[in-house]
């Protein structure tokens, strides 16, 4: 029995569609369990905890660190203050050393140890990477949730599988070869999938950034004074003395251009900070401005220039010019 040409075409179209669907990445669903309007009491500080994984997964230990790191890198774009991963690990090390699994640490303990308002927990359900001639795939399937440690409530959660595959459904021969080659680089392949995973999830996570725009206040610096003068050339042994008046009980330092940075300033009386630097023989300072900085506990820093003089060191070249 001869098949009808229309039927043939329908079959081919259906196959093409299936191929297209099977090779495209899935959509992500994030369940948000809190209000996101103006009255949202958003957590300011967040820590991404080490992710756990099913022991049956061959690359589990590897993919959990890739996903955690990549997720944080993209998560930092949102309006939360995130704790660096190293800091999180160092703070958790003592309790983990006692044999307590990360998922068994209570929210109260986490808040106390990490000093953050919320944490993100992650669990790798599955991860795959294989390249087999005409078919290649890399995938990461994971569950993520963000918990408000102040209320013990889950703010959002998601379970998602990100798949990057290439096979007979790939539309061109060049792409097929290219995908196979790329997929054989396991590290790169997992990074790409982790990146897609993170981007898709992050697109659905509420971002408090716009609610925080008006709350930002840099520390206040009122005035800066220094003992350098307009046309003076500095010489080895000369002392640059800088004073700054501003908000009290903060951390101050000054820079000489980008030549010498982070010179500490001491708060000698409430709101008055002073610091000094003695010019050394090999110092190369030419036309640098003095910049004072004042930082608060939130990590915000204010800067103010001392513009009454440029720091210029007397050099042999300058002496010869004279």
């Amino acid at each position, binding site marked *: 029995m001869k098949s009808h040409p229309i039927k043939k075409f329908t079959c*081919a*179209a259906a196959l*093409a569609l299936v191929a*297209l669907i099977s090779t495209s*990445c899935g959509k992500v669903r994030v369940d948000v369990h809190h209000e996101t309007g103006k009255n949202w009491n958003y957590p300011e500080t967040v820590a991404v905890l080490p992710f756990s994984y099913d022991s049956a997964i061959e690359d589990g230990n590897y993919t959990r660190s890739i996903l955690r790191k*990549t997720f*944080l*890198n*993209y998560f*930092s*774009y*949102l*309006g939360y*203050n995130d704790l660096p991963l190293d800091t999180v690990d160092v703070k958790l090390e003592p309790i983990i050393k006692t044999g307590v699994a990360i998922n068994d640490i209570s929210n109260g303990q986490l808040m106390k140890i990490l000093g953050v308002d919320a944490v993100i927990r992650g669990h790798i359900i599955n991860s795959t990477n294989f390249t087999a001639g005409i078919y290649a795939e890399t995938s990461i399937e994971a569950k993520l949730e963000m918990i408000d440690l102040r209320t013990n409530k889950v703010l959002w959660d998601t379970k998602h599988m990100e798949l990057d595959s290439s096979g*007979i459904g*790939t*539309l*061109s*021969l*060049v*792409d*097929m*070869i*290219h995908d196979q*080659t790329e997929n054989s680089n396991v590290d790169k392949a997992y990074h790409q999938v982790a*990146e*897609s995973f993170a*981007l898709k999830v992050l697109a659905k996570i509420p971002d*408090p*950034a*716009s609610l*925080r*725009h*008006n*709350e*930002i206040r*840099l520390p206040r610096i009122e005035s800066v004074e220094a*003992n350098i*003068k*307009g*046309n*003076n050339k500095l010489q080895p042994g000369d002392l640059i003395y800088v004073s700054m008046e501003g908000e009290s009980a903060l951390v101050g330092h000054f*820079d000489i*251009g*980008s030549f010498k*940075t982070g010179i500490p300033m001491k708060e000698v009386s409430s709101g008055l900070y002073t610091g000094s630097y003695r010019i050394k023989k090999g110092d190369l300072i030419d*036309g640098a*401005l003095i*910049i004072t*900085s004042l930082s608060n506990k939130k990590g*915000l*820093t*204010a*800067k*103010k*220039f001392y*513009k*009454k*003089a*440029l720091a210029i060191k007397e050099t042999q070249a300058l002496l010869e010019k004279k």
Partner: protein
Amino acid sequence: MNANLKTNFTPLTPHFGRVVKVTLVLILVLTFTACTTNLQSKVAGNLNLFSKQQTVAILPVEIIKKDQKETAEMLRQGLYAHLKESKFNLLERYVVDGLLKQHDLNNPADFLRINPMRFAEILGADAVLISRINRVERSYLVVHSSIEVGVSAQLVDTRTGEILWRAEQTEQDYQGIAKIPTGISSAILGPIRFVTNKLNLRRITSKLVNKLTAIVKNPEDAEKKETFEEPLIASSTARDLEKIKTVNDLEAEWAEDSAAYTKVPLPTKTQKNFQEGPVSSQQRFAPETGEMDSEHINWVPRKVGLQPVALESQVRTLDKPPIFTTTPANITSSQKSTRSEPLQYTIQVGAYKTEANANQMVSNLLEKGYRARITPDTKSGAPLFKVHVDKFGNKKQALKLTKKFATEESLSSFVTTISSN
């Protein structure tokens, strides 16, 4: 049957073998060149000095067309994610955006025109990353489609204006006949799917950012050709630093000049007379040190033998009223010391080599309601234009004004005397 097979089998001719080889090479070449990159990137040696102690602010990305907004957001997000692994600290995006908003800096197209030093004071950052989307082009021609993204970026040290990194990159990918479609439907569907799938734009942008930021993450790996030969300073900073330098030089000169007024000259005959002169004369030249910060003045002995300047050339009047023409300062020390008319006081806020600068200062002060004027003088034979404000019958009133200048205008000034004409 075997014999038939043998006879039907035609061995590969050398020509056919060559065609296969060429095809394979072509496919391989296409495989590795399908996605093309054009990257030009250079870093400054000083970028190596950056550590976690330094903070970088990634500013909102400038766009040329409205439809580039999404790509701009992708680029910024990618820059944040990739540079999170750099040696420096990143200022949170919400902090950057919030502070820019508070200062009404909402248009990224203006960022390059702003002196980076201003960003230091607004954001508290040690460097700013300014970037722009130069192009986002999607093209479709039935059996061929392509996406091209072009960006430029530069990282500027806000403390010095030095450009730490500058890059321009174009990333392009395509789908079509050249990639050898796996079937007729692929040849038709491929280009459509490629150009309409948002993920492809994201993938290209992600690749672009990955390559773009590689050198910033590891500046020590930069080759010689990827390093600036000499420090490049942002033009807006260079301009402002030059202004600061000029003002500083003039202020230093002014300090010298004021010292000349206040220091008792060394013993020449005339000077001796001056020192031994009447109290009123001595008062006229008595040091006003009480009102000056000694740390900011270069105390130098007054030079003797100032050249007198012709009287008629000394009276300077500006277009804008009410500038007071003043008594020319062409009287010698000896002449001054012998005068006995009642003292009048004024305050001096500046002394300039060029009249234009003095005029500018006077104009600014007039706009603020001060009764400013230029008093010409000479210094080592060269003209000097002093800016004086107001006249007072007693010194106390003059001192009050110097305090006002210090607090309200952040300008140093000192009291001096004038003759009452």
